[in-house]
């Protein structure tokens, strides 16, 4: 076995391999709800302090300090305040929350109880991506078990604290991962981002003070409370403390979730995953899902923490490491991602709605080898007209893969003026399984999705 600078730090994934890992019984056997018991003996504000001290930052991508977010809630006015867990994990490549809720949902439930206690919430909501019905069932069962065992409901563990949890399944829209669109959707409206201010901390769900946190952030809370802020802060780097799930997918031997301290490098992770696909080498990768600018082999040793990845020109995002080897056409990959954004743009603002529609058509043309003079400039300029001009971050994210891909692989886009990507990079060679390329019915048709 290779000697690593960094070793894995399984906490949330510690017992995923145990039989029936998702049950409350397994969770309790592995020290579950110890954090809650400890929390209920403390004052809510002390828990907020613990989370602040731990350095936990939002695991949904933006990396905002979690304890500070809780601290933004206005003083208690006697009315309700809410915790909403953002479980609408939909980004291409991102697959951490769904496996976690599938394998060990009680981490999230316990985290919800502690967080609710800390912020003074008596009704929490988990907004789950609608497509993952199996996870929905697991969550519903986990909530049911927690109620039965007295971890939810009235007078939790004799503390006098009451909490109800509602698990809500969305209807399948990427935009509902944007926290204000999520709130609108949860209220039964059309999921489109809200005008800010007011921010959710002031007027969120039903216009009440609301904390919206990512699944992994909330699930990390119980162990921080149980083991202490110092334990958590001892992992990771100076400003990116703690550990997290790194999701490797694509052309590696053993794709999957690797829970490690922040600051680990892709080189180490690929080694842990058994290396690249046999006989192939790394071409490009995303550090945090398709909304983060791509990296190449030259970035293999960038520490995967918020600051280092940012300094290298991308974002840590959701630590969704999509690995592509030299058989992959960048143009094709970028086109697929862009089609995703064009399909998922909510339509509210002009730059994102019209821009992604246009980018998709130009990219499809390039992929077919039918690009025209000026297409690359058009792509770059259109990205510039979307980035920072859209209503929410969806539009920004849609441009990242295009601008970064052109930066590193401009020649492949230039080849799109004359040669189809499928000739330069036959898709069969990238496939990990038997594969017959689909014929696209119409090229760049109006409204084609």
């Amino acid at each position, binding site marked *: 076995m290779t000697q690593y600078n960094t070793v894995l730090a399984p906490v949330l994934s510690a017992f995923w391999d145990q039989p029936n890992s998702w049950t409350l019984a397994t969770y309790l056997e592995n020290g579950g709800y110890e954090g809650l018991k400890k929390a209920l003996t403390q004052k809510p504000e002390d828990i907020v302090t613990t989370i602040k001290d731990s350095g936990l930052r939002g695991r949904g991508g933006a990396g905002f300090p979690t304890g500070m977010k809780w601290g933004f809630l206005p003083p208690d006015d006697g009315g309700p305040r809410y915790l909403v867990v953002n479980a609408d994990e939909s980004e291409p490549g991102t697959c951490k929350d769904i496996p976690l809720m599938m394998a060990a949902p009680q981490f999230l439930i316990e985290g919800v109880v502690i967080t609710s206690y800390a912020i003074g919430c008596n009704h929490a909501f988990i907004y789950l991506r609608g497509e993952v019905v199996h996870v929905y069932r697991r969550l519903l069962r986990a909530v049911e078990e927690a109620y039965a065992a007295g971890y939810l409901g009235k007078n939790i563990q004799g503390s006098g604290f009451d909490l109800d949890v509602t698990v809500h399944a969305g209807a399948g829209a990427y935009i509902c991962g944007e926290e204000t669109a999520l709130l609108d959707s949860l209220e039964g409206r059309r999921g489109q981002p809200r*005008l800010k201010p007011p921010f959710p901390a002031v007027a969120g769900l039903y216009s009440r003070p609301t904390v919206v946190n990512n699944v992994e952030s909330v699930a990390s809370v119980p162990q921080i409370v149980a083991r202490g802020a110092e334990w958590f802060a001892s992992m990771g780097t100076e400003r990116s403390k703690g550990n997290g799930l790194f999701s490797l997918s694509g052309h590696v031997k053993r794709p999957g979730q690797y829970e490690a301290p922040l600051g680990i490098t892709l080189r180490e992770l690929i080694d842990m995953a058994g290396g690249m696909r046999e006989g192939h080498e790394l071409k490009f990768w995303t550090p945090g899902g398709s909304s983060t600018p791509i990296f190449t082999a030259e970035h293999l040793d960038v520490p995967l923490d918020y600051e280092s990845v940012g300094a290298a020109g991308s974002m840590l995002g959701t630590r969704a490491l999509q690995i592509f080897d030299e058989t992959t056409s960048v143009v094709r990959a970028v086109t697929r991602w862009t089609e995703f954004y064009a*399909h998922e743009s909510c339509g509210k603002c002009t730059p994102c709605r019209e821009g992604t529609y*246009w980018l998709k058509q130009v990219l499809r043309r390039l992929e077919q080898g039918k690009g025209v003079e000026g297409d690359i400039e058009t792509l770059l300029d259109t990205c510039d007209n979307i980035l920072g*001009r859209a209503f929410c971050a969806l539009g920004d994210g849609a441009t990242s893969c295009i601008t970064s891909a052109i930066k590193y692989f401009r020649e492949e886009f230039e080849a799109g003026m004359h040669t189809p990507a499928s000739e330069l990079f036959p898709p069969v060679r990238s496939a990990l399984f038997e594969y017959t390329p689909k014929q696209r019915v119409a090229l760049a048709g109006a409204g084609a999705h």
Partner: protein
Amino acid sequence: MTDTVKFTIDGIETEVPKGTLVIRAAEQIGIEIPRFCDHPLLEPAGACRQCLVEVALPDREGNVRAMPKPQASCTLEASPGMVVNTQNTSPVADKAQKGVLELLLINHPLDCPICDKGGECPLQNQALSHGHAESRFIDVKRTFPKPISVSTQILLDRERCVLCQRCTRFSKQIAGDAFIDLQQRGAQQQIGRFDEDVLGFAKESAGGCQGYTPKQFDSVAREDVSGLDNAELKADARANTPAGETPVGAAEVDESGRLFSSYFSGNTVQICPVGALTSAAYRFRSRPFDLVSTPAISEHDSSGSAIRIDHRRGTVLRRLSGNDPVVNEEWITDKDRFAFTWQTAPGRINTPLVRKDGELVETSWSEALKVAAAGLAAGPSAVLPGGRLTIEDSYAYAKFARVALKTNDIDYRARVHSAEELSFLGSKVAGAGIGVSFSDLEKAPAVLLVGFEPEEEGGVVFLRLRKAARKNGLKAFAIAPFKSRGLERIGDAGATLIQAVPGSEGSVLDSIVTAVTTPAEGPLTQAAQALKSGGNNAVIIVGERLAGTTAGYSAAIRLAEATGARLAWIPRRAGERGALEMGALPTLLPGGRPVTDAAARVDISSLWGVPELPSTAGRDLNAIIGALQSGELNGVVTGGLELSDLPNPREARLAFEKARFVVSFEVRQSDVTEFADVVLPVAPPAERAGAFWNWEGRVRPFGRVLQTGAETDHRILSLLADEMGSPISIATIDEVRAEIDAIGNWNGARTAAPNETAGQAAQLPAGSAVLASWHQLIDAGALQVAEPFLAGTAKSPVARISAATAARVGVAEGDLLEIATQVGSITLPVAFTEILDDVVWLPLKSVGSFVHSDLNVAPGAVVELRIPRVEVPREVDTVAAGHGAVEGNEA
């Protein structure tokens, strides 16, 4: 000036009230930032991103730091020390705006040469002023089949839409009508109803979005015009739509799953920044640059809404809302906007007519005037000028009656009226100047409505009450037989209903007076307390229908005195307040001077240069009708009068038949024409200058739009008076206005306020009910003829009764019910309504329901309810009925 903010735009320091949006602040110093979704009267959306500007803010240490991204100036409030750079000074803002414009145009059809908006289109204009000259887009545009008929009047071309959401925000925020809303997402996002086909989970496309191929998508998009074709869906929507709110004509299914129905939908066409929403009446009729625009005032109601009239080569092609922040803001009713064809439609009279051998024949002005003068000289005559006159004309009729006919027998009130009302108007309204205003309504903490249905009878008054409730927390109360859809939309919770049997409003008002000093539980006390605590900011709005009650006006005055609330009288017709002020009433001279007051008569007789004026109160309209029938009166002069508007059309017809001499001043043929001995054609509003006096007491002058040969009433009356040897000398607009200006204020005694007491309600005979009725905003009114697209948006008439009353009669919801009096009956489908038992509501003058003409009674009367013996075809549900409305307004 404590609550102001100092900041800089393009290097210019400016100071604005706290909370001002940057885009508004820029306007104030003459910097125009392009925009589409922004509208000053709608809540910000920030959707189009056209108004991006570069912004820098001072940090805690006071160092001004640039914000990393350009900001939407339509959602950004100015803050102290902010530095804003627009497209004029910032390359970043300029590029951002050009980029957004290029993106907006990629899916826009650029069919400007055939688009109604071309030439006055914000997209076109801003593309030229702030956009690139050339587009780089060489790909495939998104298309939709065109257009969707939202109603018979409003059409939607989705491919032109830039998704600014102005129309949907107007409908939600201003009008409170369910409209069609955004659906689908991305570039396929569109304004539409909740359509399973468009959303991609209809039965046909099992497998959902993933299974889509572009071709399928295209075909789905094509099917979804379905709106009008999908009979099943439409039937569902019709069933969902509450009876009584169903439009007469075809309509799209709205977001609430009902048939779209709104009285204000024309405003969405006007605020649409592209040509996506158009009106059927104007679509493809003209180019904006061929039109000549004239500011004007709507003749349709007493609000005096500012409008703009556009004409081309002598023909009015459309009307738009004007922008008058103190009156109608930027909104008008669909009647104000679309009902103008009455002025020119067939039936217009252009030449004087005199009756010869029983037939009306065309003649010269000189002969017509000679015949009219001789006829009127033959014996005592009265004047019935109707309620739609300009101030100048009302004055002319009032003066003509006193000087040429030497009588006080003049009454403009072509509706239910009472002696109590005369006292009320003379004591509380006439000569009072501007009383309660639109702005006062907006700021009022509490309003009580009585005898007044704000949406149907007040139009933009309703919009202002809704705004007051939404923005300023107005508490509205209404004394009415049931909670109408309009009352439900005054604020999110609606007005509080104080249920009353028609006719009993006076005693209900007195009960509120009692509740001021003796509080109890319930809405009476809530109203009493809200009015009392509101003091003189609270308002009691009384409508003209109070004239049909016992002691209604007296009790309203008592309530105003008990609570300190102010009274506002809001009649329906545009000419009412002006006619009142000008003395077109049997008891009043101009300026609220009582005819019985010698000093008042001296004032006016000296102004008019006549030795004396008739000194006894004249006959009111009912008495004039009676006197014509009995022969006490020889003749009558009418101005724009419709006998079918009168409370007793049958008696009126008999009286006019019997009258020895009838002179009728008319724009178009009416039910008076057939009795007229002389018909004198007069100009409709578009062909003359004039002024209306709105309910606030505000004078609303307007200029002439079209130069035609048509003459004003006051000029013809002046000529007629000359012919009769009693000149009134107000032939020109300058003369009549100069004389009106010289009237001066009246400081003498006013008419005594009424102080009647409400009686006990009579016992209802078995099988009968009390009639409740009022005008619908869009109905069979004389000024709505020849506009079929508008007529299609009228509400289908129904008879509203409670379920208990229905059970007693033996009818179910939707069954036909016959409402009968001794003289006639009306048969309409039943709509179950939470209305008092033994009360039945019908529209006053809609196709299929002409209460005065068919029943010869007024609201408050006792009518019989029964199951019709013969099945009558239910025409009212069909479009044909809508067209019936335009062919003729006779029952």
